[in-house]
């Protein structure tokens, strides 16, 4: 065997290895896609079915003779216009926004200073206090809704959306305090010290220096104040029975049913319209949510 032949043999061997690796890689990728396909199907199908339902005419919707997962009459927006013209849907959207804004304000007002204090000031007992506040997130609404109904009626907010502005922070404050305290830990101490050397007090160092660099964390907290509020059903069901005061999820679930008749077209239209933006927003911030609640407990 000459040297050239040996070299040649090595090269072709290497090529064969590469090819084998490529085939294996392609097969692996195919298996991953094939494995994920059923998961994607069961996750997306209900949403697809909602969308089809929302845009179908009523007669198309209840026609048993045809393939139900496509249109047999031209799509319609009648269910959406019905929502805005004949129900309180517009009010529900507005209420949801108002609740989201005020819950965020209340949550930030409590969680930003608390998260900062827990993260940065080395308070004795800070760890226990942090865990104590987080405990509030783990005491579920189902244990609190009956006693809180007394609190809500005493505060004369019962039957209005303001009742929800009062109670939603019971789960957003602990969650956001926890999240923000993790966030403040990552802000370098030097910039704060520099500000204090420059004559800022502790409070103004917090407001002028720490908050501006923590905007991402604060935005995340706002997103969660909103998405967590949208996940509630129990509190709104118990405290708000007046139609024009309801948030979207409650309104859709309780007002679009007359007696035993479900108006599926408009129900799905209303559900979709509010649900999809929340889902998109939430999925962008999902990683922060997970690391927020599990934190380094899993690392």
């Amino acid at each position, binding site marked *: 065997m000459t040297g050239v032949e040996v070299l040649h043999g090595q090269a072709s061997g290497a090529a064969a290895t590469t090819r084998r690796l490529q085939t294996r890689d392609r097969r692996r*990728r195919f298996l*991953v*896609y094939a494995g*994920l396909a059923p*998961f994607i199907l069961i*996750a*997306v199908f*209900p*949403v697809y079915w909602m969308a089809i*339902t929302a845009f179908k005419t009523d007669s198309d919707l209840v026609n*048993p003779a045809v393939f139900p997962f496509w249109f047999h009459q031209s799509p319609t927006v009648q269910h959406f216009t019905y929502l805005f013209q004949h129900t309180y849907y517009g009010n529900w959207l507005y209420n949801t926004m108002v609740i989201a804004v005020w819950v965020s304000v209340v949550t930030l007002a*409590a*969680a930003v*200073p608390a998260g900062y*204090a827990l993260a940065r*000031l080395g*308070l004795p007992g800070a*760890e226990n206090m*942090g*865990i104590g*506040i*987080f405990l*509030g997130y*783990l*005491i*579920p609404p*189902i*244990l*609190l809704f*009956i*006693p*809180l*109904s*007394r*609190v809500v009626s005493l505060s004369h907010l019962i039957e209005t959306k303001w009742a929800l502005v009062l109670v939603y922070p*019971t789960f957003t*404050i602990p969650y956001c305090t926890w999240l923000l305290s993790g966030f403040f830990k990552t802000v370098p101490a030097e910039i704060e010290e520099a500000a204090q050397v420059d004559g800022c007090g*502790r409070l103004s160092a917090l407001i002028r220096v720490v908050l501006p660099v923590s905007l991402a964390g604060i935005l995340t907290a706002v997103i969660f104040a909103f998405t967590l509020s949208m*996940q509630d*059903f*129990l509190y709104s069901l*118990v405290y708000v029975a007046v139609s024009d005061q309801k948030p979207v*999820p*409650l309104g*859709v*679930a309780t007002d679009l049913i007359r007696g035993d008749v479900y108006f599926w077209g408009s129900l799905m239209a209303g*559900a*979709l319209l509010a*649900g999809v933006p929340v889902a*998109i927003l*939430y*999925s962008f911030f*999902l*990683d922060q949510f*997970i*690391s927020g609640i*599990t*934190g*380094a*407990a899993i690392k």
Partner: protein
Amino acid sequence: MANAELVAGVQVTRRGAILRQRLSFGYSLLAPAVIFMAVLVGAPFFFSLYLSLSDASVGSPVARYVGLQNFQAVFQDSVFRLALRNSVVFTVIAGIFKALLGTLMAFLLVQEFRGKKLVRSLVVLPWTLPITITVLAWRWMLDSQFSAVNWVGTHLHLIHGWPNWLGEPGLAVASVIAVNVWRGFPFAAIVLVAGMSAVPLEILDSAKVDGANFFLRFHHIIVPIIAPILFVGLLFDTVFTLSDLSIVYLLTSGGPEGFTEILPTRALEVGIQAGALGRGAAISLVLFPILLPVVYLLLRMLRRREAL
């Protein structure tokens, strides 16, 4: 020398003053959150203990102390006993399925492939959509007349006839559990992915290359790495599942004939709809001893995080 002592003394008192100032600053920053939580979570919790020992009702503002009568009455109620059993059974069965499906999906999601971000945001839809909204979609998919599930099932010859999912006891129980699994398994998967991404993919894969058989891999990878992460995820999920009202309330309202009743729906019916605040508080407090060990374990894990 006297001078030096004096200076040192001044420094000590100044340092003391700075420390005191920092502490009072810290505690005043904590105060709003602590006061809010004490007033709207702490106090109501103890108030609910008091309510459960009284005959308080929506109509009468004056409550009488009745000792453990509410709890006795509650445990004699057969609907409550079924609700208690269902709460536990649903949570356990759904938890097993969520763990299995979540682990399977997590192993797929940690792989590198094109379109990963899109795929991920699609498969987590059940978790990211507001729960009320997805349960309504399922109610429509399991409708007695126009069930999309039945349409697919019969055309693929997977099911015979036209089952009334929400109208028959066994099927209704299965439906409630299935919707809970559907909603919760992406959460288990994402928690696992977050935890596994701290472990190099090579380690997960290397065992395969080394020809480690399933049991070896189970021993060296699944048990030490996957299990603790999954455990944290499942603990959170258990709190969510035990305390969730919306799936049962919107799918079956506890029916047919109370077969899918769980503690939250029973507490709502008795405490608010029937107006027996005391008895309702007693029912939801029965959840407390079940939740307590779960919450204790979670807090222990979180404390470990704080120590880092």
